[in-house]
Structure formats: structure tokens, C-alpha cells
């Protein structure tokens, strides 16, 4: 393959543009998250730096860059400084294959979905390294938690991507989107979208799965010893990853830039449509963050291994049968809706109803203290020195 200079320049420019898209996406998410959470929590959110606080993330970035970069004296310097890069690079590289519209893509690979899966798992290494090289107990706990959590939740997310690959008969993002011109895959396999969203939340460590950097337990986990620019890279990677979940959800389940219009829109409109869907998923993620507390590590693992992974395998098999016997697509919809409804009902019966009953019982079973009649008003002007013993009752 002949690489000419103009090709190289073109590629460099594309990569630069991509980096900017990713960074802009991440920074916009920081602003969006703070404003949106603020609205949900009955407060304005940042509104002082720039109009609507739009420059707040920039101010934050400048602050982080100008901070002193401290590394613990006992840390493994090389690995300590390599870890943020190992986390950030995969989350950036996956963008190479994301088409933002039909031809707005750096390299559209036939194996785009596979490429995403292969690259995105690499960030685990960075997190474990960050935990280990910091030489801090909180960091190592967080690193181990990250390893357990991310490896477990890779499985359902990969299986869901496989299901989408099977349904659209391709691992190419563009063809996946084309397959959704009339019916988006969220309508075909709602269960897959839910599993994808849950596993995606866990992959990027958003609430209720922010266990590996849980602020109130391991105080930031692998990131606890980082400061300044290195911490900023982790931070950026987290938001880029959140945006990746949004984009991926939009491409794989919400019909990318095609649904609901069917035909291709003009390029700008296509990008806007895709971004709108991505931001919609991201807002759902923020909404969940505002609503739920954090799960515990054993509950998290149980959720992956007892629920998501078996369900995703079942879904995979059902999708295979559907393709083999050419059942109509709504068979999958009905099945996966059924599978969605059953655990919701079971869960609400198992936990919420007894808790509500308990709450009612607690207020009903309370010890009731009845008021004694109050004596007629006494003018207590000159009352001094009633004895302490008999003084309690007037």
C-alpha cells in the first residue's frame, strides 16, 4: 500500500478533528451533567463562568492544568505516569471507526464492532496499573474492583454487540445503521438495549456502578493519588467513555442517522440527529445518577453473573433461532419485553412492597404517648425554687 504525503496529512487532520470532537463531546458532557443534575436537584448549577456557565468546564480544565502534579514518593513512576495514557488512548482510539454520518468517519472498518470491543477492553489495564503503581491501599482496592467489574461487564456488552451484528448481518457500523432504516433495533430487541445500557453504565463506572472509584469508600480508587493534568486525563477519559456509550447506543439501537426518516438526511442534519440521540442516552445516564445510590461490590457482581450474562446468552440464542427459522422480528420484541417485565415485577415484589409494608407497620406500631391534660394557665411570675424533685410536673 502506497502512503503518499497527502494521505498522511489528511489522516493527521482527520485524527486532529476527531480528537477535538471527542474532547468537545467530553467537555460538553461535563457542562451538561452539572446543569442537568443541578436542575434535578433543585439548584441552578454552574452559572457564573460565561453565559449559562458554558465556560465552566474550560475554567476547570485551566485550573487542573495549572495545578502541581504530585506523585507519591513510593509510587512506580513509569507505570504511574503511563496509566492515564493507557486509560485515555483506548477510549479515544475507538472513535476511529465511529461514523457520525454516512461518510463522516476516519476509517470505516468491516469489523468496526469487533474493533471497538477489542480496543475498549484495554483501558482495564490502565486502571489496574494506576491502582497498583500508586502504592496506596485505596488505589489498589479500587484497581482490583475495577478489574473485577470491567471484566464481568464486558461479557454482556460484547454479547449484545454480537446480537446486533447477527441481526444486521454485519459488523460494519454503517451497515448496522442501514439495517435500522425502518425499525430501530431498540424496537426489535428492547432487552438488548437495557442490558447494553446497564453494562455500559458499569463499563464507564457511572452511578449506581461507580464502585471502583466510590468517593465515600475508596476515595477515588485508582485515581486517588493523581492530581493536576494526569487526573484531568482520567477525568476526560471517563467522560469520553460516557459519550462513547451514548454514540454506540445511538448507532446500534436508536437507528443512528437514519431512523426515523428512513432516507439519509444532509450530512450536517445526520450528524445532528446522531448526536441528539447520543445526548439523549447520556441524559438517561445522568438521570440514573441523580436517582440511585451506589451498589455494593457483591451485588454488582451478582447482577452481572446472575442476571445480565445468562440473559444476554439467552437473548443471543433466541436471536440465532429467529434468524435460522426466519421468525418475524416482533417475536424477539415480545420475548425480550416479557423478559424485561418479569424481573421488574419480581424485583418490585421482592423489595419495594415489603419495604413499603414495613414502613407502614413502623408508623402504625409506634409507641403512642398520650398527652396529659394541661393544667390551667398559671402565672409563674414569682415562682422560684420549687424543689427539684417535685419540680418536673407543674
Amino acid at each position, binding site marked *: 500500500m502506497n502512503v503518499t504525503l497527502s494521505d498522511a496529512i489528511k489522516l493527521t487532520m482527520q485524527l486532529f478533528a476527531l480528537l477535538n470532537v471527542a474532547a468537545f463531546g467530553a467537555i460538553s458532557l461535563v457542562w451538561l451533567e452539572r446543569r442537568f*443534575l443541578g436542575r*434535578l*436537584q*433543585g439548584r441552578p448549577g454552574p452559572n457564573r463562568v460565561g453565559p449559562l456557565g458554558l465556560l465552566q468546564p474550560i475554567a476547570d480544565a485551566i485550573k487542573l492544568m495549572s495545578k502541581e502534579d504530585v506523585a507519591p514518593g513510593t509510587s512506580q513512576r513509569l507505570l504511574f505516569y503511563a496509566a492515564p495514557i493507557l486509560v485515555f488512548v483506548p477510549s479515544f482510539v475507538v472513535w476511529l471507526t465511529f461514523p457520525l454520518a454516512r461518510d463522516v468517519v476516519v476509517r470505516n472498518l468491516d469489523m468496526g464492532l469487533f474493533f471497538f470491543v477489542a480496543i475498549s477492553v484495554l483501558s482495564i489495564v490502565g486502571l489496574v496499573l494506576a491502582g497498583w503503581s500508586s502504592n496506596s*491501599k*485505596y488505589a489498589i*482496592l479500587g484497581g482490583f474492583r475495577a478489574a473485577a467489574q470491567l471484566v464481568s461487564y464486558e461479557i454482556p456488552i460484547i454479547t449484545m454487540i454480537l446480537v446486533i451484528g447477527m441481526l444486521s448481518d454485519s459488523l460494519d457500523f454503517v451497515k448496522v445503521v442501514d439495517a435500522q432504516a425502518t425499525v430501530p433495533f431498540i424496537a426489535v430487541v428492547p432487552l438488548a438495549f437495557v442490558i447494553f445500557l446497564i453494562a455500559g453504565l458499569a463499563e464507564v463506572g457511572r*452511578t*449506581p456502578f*461507580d*464502585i471502583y472509584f*466510590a*468517593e*465515600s*469508600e475508596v*476515595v477515588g480508587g485508582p485515581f486517588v493519588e493523581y492530581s493536576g493534568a494526569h487526573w484531568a486525563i482520567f477525568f476526560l477519559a471517563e467522560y469520553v467513555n460516557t459519550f462513547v456509550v451514548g454514540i454506540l447506543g445511538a448507532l446500534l439501537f436508536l437507528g443512528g442517522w437514519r431512523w426515523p426518516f428512513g432516507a439519509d438526511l444532509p450530512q450536517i442534519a445526520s450528524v445532528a440527529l446522531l448526536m441528539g440521540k447520543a445526548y439523549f442516552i447520556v441524559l438517561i445516564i445522568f438521570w440514573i445518577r*441523580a*436517582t*440511585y*445510590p*451506589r*451498589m*455494593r*461490590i*457483591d451485588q454488582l457482581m451478582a447482577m452481572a453473573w446472575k442476571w445480565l450474562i445468562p440473559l444476554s446468552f439467552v437473548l443471543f440464542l433466541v436471536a440465532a433461532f429467529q434468524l435460522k427459522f426466519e421468525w418475524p422480528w416482533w417475536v424477539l420484541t415480545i420475548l425480550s419485553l416479557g423478559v424485561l417485565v418479569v424481573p421488574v415485577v419480581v*424485583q*418490585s415484589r421482592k*423489595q*419495594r412492597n415489603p*419495604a413499603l409494608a*414495613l*414502613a407502614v*407497620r*413502623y*408508623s402504625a*406500631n*409506634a*409507641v*403512642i*404517648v*398520650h*398527652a*396529659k*391534660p*394541661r393544667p390551667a*394557665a*398559671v*402565672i*409563674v*411570675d414569682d*415562682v*422560684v*425554687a*420549687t*424543689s*427539684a424533685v417535685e*419540680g*418536673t*410536673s*407543674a
Partner: protein
Amino acid sequence: MTNEPQFDHVDMMLNMGPQHPATHGVFRMVLTVDGERVVDVTPHIGYLHRGTERLAEVETYGQVITLFDRVDYISNLNNELAFVRAGEKIMEVEAPERAQYIRVILAELNRVASHLLFIGTYAIDLGGMTPVMYCFRERERIENLFEHVTGARMMHNYMRIGGVKSDVPDDFVPWVRRLIGEVRMGVEESDKLLSTNEVFLARTQGVGVIDGPTAVSCGLSGPSLRGSGVAYDVRKDDPYEIYPYLNYKIPLGENGDCWDRYYLRVLECYESLNMIEQCLDQFPAGPIMAAGRRIARPPAGEVFAHSENPRGDLGVYLVSDGSDKPYRVKIRPPSFCNLVGLATMTRGAYIADAVAILGSLDIVLGEVDR
């Protein structure tokens, strides 16, 4: 034992605190952890020791009230109430009825404010970040009222031995009535968001269980004790002020887990608001200070007075040698005593549970260390 493989292993010591987001101040607990399991926990206290009890010996009775504001800095008025009751007992005065009503209204409001802070920070401990905003909003409303009445938002120095510093403003009763409605809605909001949230239930139910007898033997009091089903409340068992003239319920838990301790505080918020409403209905006119309040030298002797603080049974043991300063002031701080149950509850739990259990005890380090 013979069939089990023998490996050398060393449990990790995990030092939580004194600077840790989950310890609510400068508290340090050394966890011995085996993976994610807590094998043992050793609390270390004293980082906020300010010598309150010693300071109280060199201040006059009136000045000691300011120290009690700072013992448990979340529920200042309840602390003042405990001390002025001890002072009234030793000086053998009784506050006029109106003063008692004012005190009870303010103390119950402070209980609500304190429980609101607990609900919010407990959600933060468990990773939920929204309830704290709702709770602080309501707490601000209560503190605005305190500022209006006492002149300060936290360090009030409002109660006096024999009454209160000044009468309430004219708009006190309508203001409190309006406040009750607002705060009740705010508590309901957090209650609906958090109390039966599936993740919250999974994190708190069956966690940090302590049964009634153990809780009693650990010296627990307040909602932490009542969560285990023990009906002990100073307001009921040793009534003081005007509590006998109020109808109220003391909610009891059954399981003694973190959720029970949490939920009792939510219920107590509603109960306190009901009690305040009754107080306002009965609110009498009259003086706010007992005559003869200039008595600065109580007779020599000793008294013990206690009251129900948001965290439990706050006792004050006061010894007088006949001078204008207390000879000895011993505080029985509920936070400190509740902390005794921490190790019992935490052993065998997860690290995340240790945070949940510590949070459910609702300690205030100012009171633990004094």
C-alpha cells in the same frame, strides 16, 4: 482444619480517616480487611477534643451554655436544653410555661434539621447525591427561622437557666406554621426518593444488624437503639418540659439494621413536626424567664439531667461546690456511646457496609470527642 489448604496470609489494614469523606469529620477507623470483607474495626477518636468538660469548670453557668452549642454542632438547641435543665435542677428554678414551649418548639425543629442532615449525608455515604440537596434546602428554611428567633443560625446561645434569652418575634407562630408545611413536603420528597429505592434497600436492609439486648448492652440510645425495637425515649420515660402535654408516637424498628435506623429518623421528622403543631396550638402567653434569674451561685450538690437529643440520650451530670462556676460538668454524649456498637455491627460486613453502618449511627465528632 486438616482438609483445608494452609496458606500464609496477612489481612490488610485499611486506615479510614481522619480525613475521609465517609467519616463525617475527624474520625478514624482502622479496618482489618480480608479482600472486601471487614474482619475487625478499631475506632480511634480524639481528633476534635476541645476540652469542653474542663472549659466548663472555668466558665460561669451562663457561659457554659455557649460551650454546649459547640458540643454537638448539628443540634445546638437540644444541647443547650440539656444543660439548662441541669442548671435549673441544681438552682431549683423552673422555666415559665411559655419559655418551655419555646424551647420545645425550637428543640424539635432542631431535631428535624439534624435528621434532615442525616438523611442527606447518609444518601451521600451510599453514593446517592440528590437527597442531600433537598434536605439542605429544608434545613436552610429551619435555620432561617432560628436566625430570626435567636439571632444565630447555629451557635445560638439562646436558652438560659430559668427560661430563654428573649421572647420570640411577633410573627413566630405563623412563620413556624408555614415552615412546618414546607419542611413536611421536603421530608416527603426525600422519603419518596430514597426510602424504598431498590438500590438503597439492597444496601441497607440486613446490613449492620444489632439485636435489642446487644444494643442495650452497648449503651446505644436514640434512633440507633429504637431501630432494634427497644422503646426507650427520654421524652417518654423521663418526661421533661412540656412533653407530657403532647400526643406523639415513638416509632420502633424490628430488624435493627441500617434501614430501620434510617427510616426511624424519617418518621421522627414527621412526628416532631406534629409535636410542634400541637405546641403552637397550646402556645401560652406569659413571661419567658423565671424570676430570681440572677441567682448565679447554686447550692453545693450534684444533679443529673438528661434529654432526648436527635442522636440519643444526652446526659449532663453537674456538680456544684457553691461557687458561680460548675465544679464538674460530665457529658454523656449519645454519639460516643452509639459508637460502641460500631465494631459489633461491622465485623464480617463489606467495606462499603462499614461506611453504611457508620453513617447509620449518625455520629457527630464534636460530641464524640467533646
